[in-house]
């Protein structure tokens, strides 16, 4: 559930980022959405790692799904650091948009793959 909430917050962040780019919203209005999305996503990663351990004995699984989740986490971790780089703060709206595109591509490709893959072990 935490991951779904995070996805929703990332999409909302992208929407406000888009409004910020076209000048219809305050410059950093999207930032709070991204921060809360990142917190929710981090909670999802940690609880997922605990579940992965009790189920399969690993805290990380070398599968497309887990690597995709790590891709999203590191991308947003990088985006959050942009605010603290002088002169780059304004570009973070574009990163919010790119992040939402990444979330869409990775999550939907995972769902499609999981629908067709023979699942072994749980």
């Amino acid at each position: 559930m935490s991951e779904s909430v995070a996805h929703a917050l990332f999409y909302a962040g992208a929407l406000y980022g888009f409004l910020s780019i076209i000048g219809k919203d305050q410059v950093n209005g999207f930032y709070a959405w991204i921060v809360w999305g990142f917190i929710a996503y981090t909670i999802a990663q940690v609880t997922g790692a605990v579940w992965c351990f009790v189920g399969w004995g690993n805290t990380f699984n070398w599968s497309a799904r887990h690597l995709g989740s790590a891709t999203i986490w590191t991308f947003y971790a990088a985006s959050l650091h942009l605010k603290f780089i002088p002169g780059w703060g304004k570009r973070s709206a574009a990163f919010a948009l790119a992040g939402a595109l990444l979330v869409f591509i990775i999550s939907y490709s995972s769902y499609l793959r999981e629908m067709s893959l023979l699942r072994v072990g749980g």
Partner: protein
Amino acid sequence: MIRRIWNILGDIKVSFALLMAASATLFTGSLYAGDHYSLFNELNHLRIQDWVADHITLQPERVWWIPLLFIIMGCLGANIFMFACNRVAALVRQRKLDPNIRFFHLLTPSLIHFLFLVIILGHLMTFTLDRWQTTPIKQQSRVECGEERQVLRVQSVRDTFFPENSAMRDNIFQTRVTLKNEEGKEIALQFTKPVFIDGHYLFLDKKKEQKKKTWKQNLEKTSKMMKTATRPISI
């Protein structure tokens, strides 16, 4: 000179570049892992150095991104350590000017950075030190686990099913495997309930065996497997 190098390597721009590089590498890896499921699934039960040594010469075009990912994450770990140390040192220097609440508020991001370092070091140790063994189990069979070949005897394998009025009827709800060690101590093993004994984690898993497959039918039977992880450290 050393201080200058330390400050450059601990710069936030380097953190940003390394995080983006890690993201790009992980994304590339997710594409390879999606296309070659069996190849990368082996990595979940082998030490990373053994797996990479086996595959880097045979199929470098598929596994090149794993050493690159470890290099990037290593650099990121060093960068975060330097950045967090610089930040904590600056906060401690100006502590007299800040009230306690503000000091601890400002300290929180650095604590999160140190926590992240602990997590990636934990992952590194798990990837490089864990040893795995998967053993099929049947009633009254004998299982040897670990390098010291500790003997366990399977006393019983009992499945419980979902209730008859449930949409999931005829599906296994839980399996309880009772093991007995050489001292006669009973160990109960169930799905999602690992047991830690004598430095080993025991997990109950199942493996689907494809029995018959036609364009209409896809019948499968499952067999129980026990996985043993020897874990010098627990994360």
